[in-house]
């Protein structure tokens, strides 16, 4: 079955994601009428749209059948593919990171950082993260009665946390934030490399220049950590060996980049989106103040609501079936977490923000072998921020219209103006 052109166009349209509702409406129709069907938006290779929660789980549970890295791991235009392969020497993804790896290589590389991000390992970081949270809360309170919660708090706090975990000096944070935003927001003239409207080829060139800056920066870091190893994550990456060899240049750079960028941008988006939701729902804030124990449920619902990673792509390595639908070897597939987290078959009132979902089966971190490596860190740092902030606040409301980034991949609110009163 073919998804009608207008719907297919909407679910890849960065501006539709920035608007929000058009994408949710398109996926609502797709889930109801063609939950696993082919989309062929203009300029793109056709792909299956996996819109249901259960089907995404089915696909993600079979990483040998559905590969991440044989084709582009995220939506891309057909005309981009040869350029990316040219730049990378034949690979379909500009960055060779965990999200684009398969099989033993994925397993080996994931194992490098995994022991540092288990809940058990993270418990040792709780005090340090709480100190960071207190710093940002204090700065926000000084701005009373108004701030842009996205740019003043949500972008900066997770950045400080992840840079501390990685071992990046504080003075380099603005540089890392800029490069991350360039990497994930190439379609947004406010945040992309050239700070203007660009065509796809210019966007790719901007990404390439951003990558060069990142590679130069991390090249120096590798030397530093090999000379003086620490227990910080970037040192683990710099010194990791697989079969007796250091990671190759593509693996090293991909690892640094995914850890540094995905390690904060997703949490920033979720944190900003959570505050937006709260500012529009005074009853929710009252509930949280009355029962601080609900903070974990609030965090989980924020993740379901914001869905900071809108999709990942897979491709089938063999002829197979998903929910009775035949999929051919080589077929490209869009796993829409945006859609799955609104799936009526899993969530009651999916378009309502509720902190009474028990359990909350949100699937924004993915599932199976590729489930987000930093998910427990993300939850912990958000919980700590709210624990530190809420006791100071009496009320919150929007002080303007929030705005989302123009992107169809990793994105969320970029401005959340709020007015707040203090206890």
């Amino acid at each position, binding site marked *: 079955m073919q998804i009608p052109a207008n719907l297919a166009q909407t679910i890849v349209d960065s501006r539709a994601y920035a608007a929000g509702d058009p994408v949710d409406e398109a996926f609502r129709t797709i889930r109801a009428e063609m939950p696993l069907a082919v989309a062929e938006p203009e300029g793109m290779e056709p792909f299956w749209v996996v819109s249901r929660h259960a089907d995404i789980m089915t696909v993600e*549970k079979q990483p040998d059948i559905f590969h991440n890295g044989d084709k582009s791991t995220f939506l891309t235009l057909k005309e981009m593919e040869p350029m990316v392969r040219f730049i990378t020497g034949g690979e379909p993804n500009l960055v060779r990171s965990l999200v684009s790896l398969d099989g033993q290589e994925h397993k080996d590389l994931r194992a490098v950082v995994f022991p540092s991000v288990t809940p*058990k390992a993270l418990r040792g970081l709780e005090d340090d993260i709480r100190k960071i949270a207190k710093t940002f809360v204090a700065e926000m309170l000084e701005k009373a009665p108004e701030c842009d919660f996205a740019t003043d708090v949500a972008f900066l706090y997770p950045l400080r946390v992840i840079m501390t975990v990685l071992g990046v000096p504080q003075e380099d944070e603005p540089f890392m934030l800029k490069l991350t935003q360039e990497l994930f927001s190439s379609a947004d003239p406010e945040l992309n490399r050239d700070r203007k409207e660009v065509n796809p080829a210019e966007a790719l060139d901007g990404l390439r220049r951003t990558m060069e800056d990142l590679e130069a920066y991390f090249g120096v870091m590798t030397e530093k950590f090999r000379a003086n190893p620490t227990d910080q994550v970037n040192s683990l990456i710099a010194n990791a060996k697989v079969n007796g060899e250091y990671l190759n240049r593509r693996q090293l750079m991909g690892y640094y980049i995914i850890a540094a960028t995905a390690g904060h941008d997703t949490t920033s988006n979720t944190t900003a989106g959570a505050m937006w939701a709260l500012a529009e729902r005074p009853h929710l804030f009252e509930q949280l103040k009355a029962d601080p124990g609900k903070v974990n449920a609030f965090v989980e619902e924020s993740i379901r609501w914001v869905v900071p990673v809108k999709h990942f792509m897979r491709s089938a390595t063999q002829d197979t079936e998903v929910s009775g639908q035949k999929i051919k070897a080589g077929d490209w597939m869009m796993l829409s977490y945006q859609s799955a987290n609104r799936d009526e078959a899993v969530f009651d009132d999916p378009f309502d923000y509720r902190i009474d979902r028990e359990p909350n089966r949100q699937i924004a971190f993915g599932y*199976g072998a590729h*489930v987000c490596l930093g998910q*427990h860190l993300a939850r912990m740092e958000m919980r700590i921020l709210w624990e530190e902030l809420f006791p100071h606040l009496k009320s919150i409301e929007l002080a303007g219209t929030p705005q989302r980034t123009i992107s169809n991949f990793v994105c969320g609110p970029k401005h959340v103006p709020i007015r707040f009163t203090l206890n």
Partner: protein
Amino acid sequence: MAEPFKRYRCTYCGQEYDEAEGWPEDGIAPGTRWEDVPDDWYCPTCGAEKADFEMVEIG
């Protein structure tokens, strides 16, 4: 008659622990019952703790 083996699933990533198979990579022998899995064992895929697994409904 011995109780049939059960399976438990990590609520965070879907990783399953099958009592019949154990988890030999972590030194947990095949046939190890869930209650005998050490409390400090964690999900080999996502790191979630033993308490974050739920029993898989059979049938």
